[in-house]
């Protein structure tokens, strides 16, 4: 049970595949148009079930409750060793006295 007032994320399909715009390419048309939004739960709700939120602008949206206190999981990624090679190459060219 997630309590009323908690900061959550919801999901819903806003256009089903058959409702999509005519100009959309086939691979996209095979999928629904999905939406995510965040806000405060307006009533106690269960994860994976229908819920209503009030967003920071005061709008109300409904959808499936997917996450509480949502996590930003983007990061700086794994090391790309090639970047270190670029560093060595251009520092050598600018400061290493390489002849053209």
């Amino acid at each position, binding site marked *: 049970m997630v309590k009323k007032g908690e900061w959550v994320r919801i999901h819903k399909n806003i256009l089903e595949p058959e409702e999509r715009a005519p100009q959309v390419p086939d691979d996209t048309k095979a999928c629904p148009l999905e939406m995510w939004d*965040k806000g405060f739960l307006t009533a106690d709700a269960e994860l994976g079930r229908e819920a209503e939120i009030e967003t920071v602008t005061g709008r109300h949206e409904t959808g499936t409750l997917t996450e509480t206190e949502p996590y930003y999981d983007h990061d700086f990624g794994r090391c790309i060793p090639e970047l270190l090679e670029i560093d060595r190459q251009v520092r050598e060219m600018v400061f290493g006295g390489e002849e053209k």
Partner: protein
Amino acid sequence: MTKASDYASVMARRPEIMLKSVGIDYSKFESGSIAFDYEKMMKETGYTLEEMQEIQYGVNVGRTPVLELKNLTALARKCAPEGKGARIFIKDEAANPSGSFKARRAANAVYHAKRLGYRGVIAATSGNYGAAVASQAAIAGLKCIIVQECYDSEGKGQPEIIEKARKCEALGAEVVQLTVGPELFYKFLLLLEETGYFNASLYTPFGIGGVETLGYEISTQFRERFGRDPDVVVCTQAGGGNLTGTARGLKKAGAKSKVIGASVDLSGLHMASDRDFNLKSFTTGHTGFGVPFSNWPDRSDVPRSAARPLRYMDRYVTITQGDVFYMTECLATLEGMEKGPAGNTSLAAAFALSQEYDRDALMVVQETEYTGAGKHVQPQLSFARSNGIDVHFGDPKDEVPGKNIVLPSHPSLIKATDVDLDHMRRSLIKTAMKTYGVADPVQKDIEFLAEETMKDADWVKQVIDELK
């Protein structure tokens, strides 16, 4: 009574929703044929340069520094023919409150919204403009909703866009995130209708006019420092507003600098394709926007776009994803600064272009943007690798967007590839005739198309004859 919310019904209400949310009656500027009065639209619905400066400087936007990249210039000269290699500068627009030049566009749009009494603003954007509108709305005390195209059908997000969502939320905005598809515009219209907020479109006269201060500042700063304007201004080209506004500002300063547009080559990838969405490593500043928005500016979210790049672009070049990543790393390792991908697109182009000019020429890349988790060379290349993109050293001319990213094995392999501007101009004329159903453009249309394409009336007439 509840209005119908199916796709066709909402799109049919577009004109009335737009009129209410932008507050501009575009019909006033129409001729009834192909031509419309662009300058009248810019004048009557925008602000003067002085007013825009006052608006922007009042909210800590603008007056960003110009930085000389001496080590990068030295590297370019190592790759250039004897005596060649223009001095390369950047206008450090990342110093704006929201971290990019888009703060200039947003400052004007939000000021205008507040003046007209709107309670909030909405923008449909996955890029820096969202953060800029959120930032300006925060300063103005207005509510803000940003609508983003963010995920593919597997729920995998573009790291750069997820970061932008985080930033918008950090600045107090509601972020509505969607999967791939042009129906983003459908949700955008529904939100405008529901909230009655202002449409802070990127393409209104206030939005584009907001960038004029950037071009004007460049001229002023170069005159103060070097006693003359820069020879070349390189602009990353996507929707066209950056280039249009900068060029207009340069003209207002009386500068005769060459304006060169640069985009990342993403040819072959479909912008509305769910499958292609995460195969690209750039979410803007690429040919997927840069070419269609030049060929036909009136594809935007307003009836007549104020961004009309073919009117101002002296030259248009493309650069590869691998080139931009390489140059981003050079900026860090040679100049000691990390900047985001949008400005580094024109920087990579400038690196190649500078080698065509004499050493005393001044070349300025007119923007930088902030960098951070998700929008940085390392997570972008990591993401590409995790999506099966083959990242390797080689000759960037072998890069195939969506398949590989070729990091140049030597900086001399970074080349700016010219786009055929006459071809784009012909395409614009063709689309204009088709869109307005005009087989025989009248004199007024011909003059308009000449301005649209930076050509003379005879050239336009010849193209029209060829199209007949």
